[in-house]
């Protein structure tokens, strides 16, 4: 019986060890870029204003380390959009923040599409006329108080925004890590609505 146990142990160990350690997502490509997404920062905000987020991304993206720009449309075999997320929170009491619920109806959407709720899933949609991926939408600021906006739900990143291509089929998924200098060192853009 002891031999049997050793044999079973051997099988289990080998089944585990034989897993290809290269397993992963081989359709994913990551590239870096700067300031692809911007918050339309205003000096003052009043109740009834909107906080706008904009993405205006050329199909041809400068890529660090290469002389030629990267064609992100061709790379993704014609991805219809790039997705990123952000969340707006309001300070309900000192140090306590609560997400501001939005809907597609209450938001102003000038370009791209959103799925809104406690956070916004934004898609910068491809515009064939100017060969750019574009997003522009505003969330209403309904009440006075302190607000903060951050990118990436549950993301620890403080100075970068991740955009992911809406790739179809088995084509490449392109993930663009875009640095931003609009966030503080905790990863928030903070502002006050009067």
């Amino acid at each position, binding site marked *: *019986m002891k*031999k*049997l146990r050793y*044999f*079973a142990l*051997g*099988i289990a160990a*080998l*089944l585990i*060890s*034989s897993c*290809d*350690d*290269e*397993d*992963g*997502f*081989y*359709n*994913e*490509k990551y590239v870096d870029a700067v300031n692809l997404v911007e918050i339309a920062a205003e000096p003052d905000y009043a109740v009834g204003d909107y906080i706008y987020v904009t993405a205006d991304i050329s199909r*041809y993206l400068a*890529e660090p380390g*290469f002389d*030629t*720009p*990267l*064609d992100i449309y*061709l*790379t993704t075999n014609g991805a219809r959009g790039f997705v990123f997320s952000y969340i707006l929170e309001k300070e309900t009491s000192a140090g306590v923040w609560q997400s501001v619920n939005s809907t597609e109806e209450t938001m102003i959407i000038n370009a791209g599409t959103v799925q809104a709720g406690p956070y916004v899933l934004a898609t910068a949609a491809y515009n064939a006329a100017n060969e750019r991926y574009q997003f522009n939408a505003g969330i209403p600021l309904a009440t006075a108080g302190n607000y903060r906006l951050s990118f990436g739900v549950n993301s620890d990143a403080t100075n970068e925004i991740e955009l992911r291509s809406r790739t179809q089929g*088995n084509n*490449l998924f*392109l993930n663009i890590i875009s640095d931003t200098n609009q966030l503080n060192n905790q990863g928030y853009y903070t502002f006050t609505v009067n």
Partner: protein
Amino acid sequence: MKKFLIACLLFSATVFAQDDESSKKGPVSAKKNEFRVDALSLIAFGKANISYERFGDGKWSYGVTGSFAFGDKFENDFDEGYRSTLPKYEVVPYIRYKMSNSDAHYYFIEGFISANGGDFREITRTDDGTVGFYQISKEDYFSLAPGASVGYKVYFADSIALEFLVGAGFNILDPDKSPDVISRIGLNLGYRF
């Protein structure tokens, strides 16, 4: 899959309970040839795995295993980017040493060399002079993997073989494209004649 393996192992436990002395000598040793089919690879991995083994008079035997993939699972995983290699074929010459005196059931060890090949994929940047773009490039790979296995074999009715086999080898050619490890795991059903 787990249940299947456990069931096989439990089944083997009943075989272990047989009287060892009664099966040391018998007509099995008079039969020198054996063909086997790996049921585990067939069911779990979509691979046809056929082996031939030639027995000598002593404890040594030798043979060859041929394997090729026919199922969609690996190919779909490969296309969807869950793996970088798609093993397509494998030829494995091996030599075995029987670890006990019994011919009816015994442990064995083996050394083998796996000649294996398939497809490899990677993401490459192509530059046409004006713009660059990334794409998935596919290439063939071929490699050799020396390795070792241990196994247990039992015969029923002096001819029907049931064999468990576990082992691994490491590819030494084309290391950038071929899988690092080649596993040799089997639940073989065979006929000895």
